[in-house]
């Protein structure tokens, strides 16, 4: 008679330390270094001691001269503290070749067919349950951190010649921005001479910050300061400013956070006839009709741009990271020498970080340094023309990236925060024959386990299926205690490391879209894994991984015979409108 259950140890948070395990002497040394010296160990609970965090969530890396520590564009899950030596932070983009980018290895046809052939017939079969599991021998390669970059920059002075860079010395922290905001690295950091760095997994950084006010304030201060310079450089009109003017703009810029960072709590159900108060309850950043006081840049998160219509507000567009609000009005104010009225309201969706540049600063440091043509082009690109019945971009050609999506669809995407999805599974039900070829293709590429459900939120004939959307802001990553869920360094897709997942369900509960499933796992004979202590089944978090190791991309999209299914960035309205209008 086959065995029905297999008793195993439940995977634990620190089964797999971050890199090679730190020795006790290393931890002792670290505790003598700032900022750890000032941290009170008694503020940490017994289950999560400070020593434990340093021992298991950090590692000491030695970099030779010219080694790239982090690359611009990579997704990173860790921050760095300079223990010895110094690093160069390159603020201007270096070429991909210089940074050693290489296409990732994908499974070939034969390899994919072999994997398909070997797929177990039972669902959710695991050969290994955790990195320390005794089911088979431990394979450390499978649990390696995704964010290890070891590329050397040859001839550093020549490569960095003329690049805008700054030097960080012993005791300084970097990389916290990408680690905390789940965003790609915005700069490249190169070791200058032999450099010793402490790399801190973001879960460890988060736990340290939670219990240390000074460290939290320091990191938040760094975050604001560092992100500000990078962000201003990427803003239209400001990109060409001389360094001294940009510095003046940076000094005068006000950093604001609106809304609730813990926005992953369930979003309210969308209903076409819902009351306008819902929109009105969103935190107001700038109100329509008020005099223009300056430019607002969206630093992170999403904001709704709306126009008063009847007793409610009609959504015109939404602004995401890097987008600008109020440019047309600031220019108009500058030209007319009297404040223009804001043509639309800006409200926080969930949470949003914005930068405000006051009008006086723009007039003193920005407009005099930019050509009239550039100002007019920018104004036309960002202006909306609204009548009582509808709103549209003033310039079709210049505003093409926002696309023309019908207002109800736009409202649906914004209300449900679906704009967060970079690889959402959108199904056109007018073309879908419900053949389930997409589900079968998904199962075939994942050991006979489909990683999505062909149901979900619906607007008219469009269905956003329950498949991981690989969000701009993957809030599922926030609470993961082991770092098992993280971004792929190169593609940015959100992946789960099955061996380090302890089945705590935090990610599944955090996902506002219900796109992560907790599944019981079994061995090849079908025996369900049971925790030795609690006698409860052991779960693993599962979700779409975008077929990241499969040549050609997501199998679901390629398997759809009727062009009904697409993996699409719902934040890109241009792409969406082109797909809708096919």
């Amino acid at each position, binding site marked *: 008679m086959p065995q029905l259950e297999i008793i195993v140890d439940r995977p634990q948070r620190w089964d797999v330390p971050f890199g090679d395990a730190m020795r006790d002497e290393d931890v002792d040394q670290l505790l003598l270094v700032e900022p750890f010296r000032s941290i009170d160990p008694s503020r940490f609970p017994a289950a999560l001691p400070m020593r434990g965090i340093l021992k298991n969530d950090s590692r000491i890396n030695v970099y030779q001269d010219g080694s790239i520590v982090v690359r611009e564009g990579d997704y990173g899950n860790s921050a760095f503290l300079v223990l010895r030596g110094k690093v160069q932070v390159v603020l201007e983009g270096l070429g991909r070749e210089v940074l050693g980018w290489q296409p990732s290895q994908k499974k070939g046809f034969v390899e994919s067919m072999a994997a398909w052939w070997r797929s177990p017939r039972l669902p959710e079969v695991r050969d290994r349950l955790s990195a320390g599991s005794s089911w088979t021998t431990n394979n450390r390669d499978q649990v390696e951190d995704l964010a290890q970059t070891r590329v050397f920059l040859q001839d550093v002075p020549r490569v960095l010649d003329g690049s805008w860079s700054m030097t960080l010395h012993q005791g300084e922290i970097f990389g916290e921005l990408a680690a905390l905001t789940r965003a790609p690295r915005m700069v490249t950091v190169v070791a200058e001479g032999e450099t010793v760095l402490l790399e801190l997994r973001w879960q460890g950084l988060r736990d340290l910050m939670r219990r240390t006010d000074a460290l939290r304030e320091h990191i938040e201060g760094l975050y604001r300061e560092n992100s500000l310079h990078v962000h201003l450089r990427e803003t239209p009109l400001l990109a060409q400013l001389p360094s001294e003017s940009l510095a003046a703009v940076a000094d005068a810029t006000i950093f604001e956070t609106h809304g609730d960072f813990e926005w992953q709590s369930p979003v309210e159900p969308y209903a076409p006839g819902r009351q306008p108060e819902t929109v009105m309850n969103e935190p107001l950043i700038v109100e329509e009709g008020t005099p223009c006081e300056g430019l607002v840049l969206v630093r992170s998160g999403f904001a709704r741009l709306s126009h008063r219509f009847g007793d409610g507000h009609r959504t015109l567009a939404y602004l995401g990271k890097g987008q600008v609000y109020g440019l047309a009005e600031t220019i108009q104010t500058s030209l007319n020498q009297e404040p223009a009225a804001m043509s639309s309201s800006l409200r926080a969706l969930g949470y949003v970080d914005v930068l405000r540049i006051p009008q006086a600063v723009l007039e003193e440091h920005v407009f005099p340094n930019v050509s009239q043509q550039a100002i007019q082009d920018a104004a036309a690109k960002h202006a909306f023309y609204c009548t009582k019945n509808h709103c549209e971009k003033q310039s079709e050609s210049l505003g093409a990236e926002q696309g023309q999506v019908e207002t109800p669809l736009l409202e649906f995407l914004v209300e449900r925060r679906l704009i967060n999805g970079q690889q959402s599974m959108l199904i056109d039900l*007018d073309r879908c024959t419900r053949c389930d070829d997409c589900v079968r293709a998904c199962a075939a590429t994942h050991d006979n386990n489909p990683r999505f459900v062909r149901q979900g939120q*619906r607007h008219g004939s469009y269905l956003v299926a329950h498949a991981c959307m690989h969000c701009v802001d993957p809030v599922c990553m926030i609470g993961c205690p082991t770092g098992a869920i993280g971004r792929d360094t190169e593609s940015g897709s959100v992946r789960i490391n099955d061996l380090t997942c302890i089945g705590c369900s935090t990610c599944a509960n955090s996902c506002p879209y219900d796109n992560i499933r907790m599944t019981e796992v079994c061995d090849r004979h079908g025996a369900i894994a049971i925790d030795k202590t609690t006698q409860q089944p052991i779960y693993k978090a599962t979700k779409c991984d975008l077929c990241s190791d499969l040549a050609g991309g997501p199998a679901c*999209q390629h398997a759809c*015979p009727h*062009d009904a299914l697409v993996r699409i960035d719902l934040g890109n309205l241009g792409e969406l409108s082109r797909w809708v209008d*096919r």
Partner: protein
Amino acid sequence: MISFASRRLQSVALTIVVLACVAYWTHWQGSVFEHSAFGTGYLLLAAILFLTLYNLRKKMPIPLWVTSTDWLQAHIYVGFSSAVFFGLHIGWRIPDGFIEGTLAGLYLATFVSGLVGLYWTRTIPHKLARVSEEVIFERIPRLRSRLRAKAEQAVLTTVRSAGVTTLGEFYGNRLQDFFENSRGLRYFLRPTSRLRKSLLAELTEVSRYLSEPERQASELLFALIRKRDDLDFHAALQWRLKMWLFVHIGLTYPLIIVASLHGLLAHLFDGGAL
């Protein structure tokens, strides 16, 4: 992104050019006293084998050369072309032999089932999309039994709490069958909303005799009748979409077997190639 209209235009143009070339070639063969039947026969067999390959592609875990959409497009236009190859092959005459007749019948049945499938796959999704809720075919029986349980619970509660049986009797006489049994084959072949309308009208009619608790329960019954009917509608149309494919693929195998036999016999009695 290429629009559907452009794609259709390009594919139709390419198909017409290919068919014109094949037609010209057979005409030229005829004019020089060559027999074109073997050429068109092999062309037809190749087309049928290519059409069959699509089913194999659908079972592959990874994209085989091109996407499933591209395969289907090729499948459709090669399928249409095969009808012209077939016409050229039989010389636009009705076959009179037993094997030829059987083969022609199988081909035509497969071709017509393809045409019907094409029509259904282009029209049924619109009808399904108009139903408010999206359901997965395999989950329909479970959803039906949940609806039935809810309906029964609502009625029994009124009987127990209010001690009146008007709604209970109506449920037993008119709604119990509807909630418990599957709709017949006739509905699956031609789903209509006649029963739904009729039951809703009857429930409206009986409402005037209901007590307050029963009236509240009847409101729930209105919603459950609509939901159940929507489920049946989904079940019928999704079943149809699955069945036609079953028939279409099922016809392919005897078609290939008989076509191969026909080719073998043709060569044997031609006294040539074999």
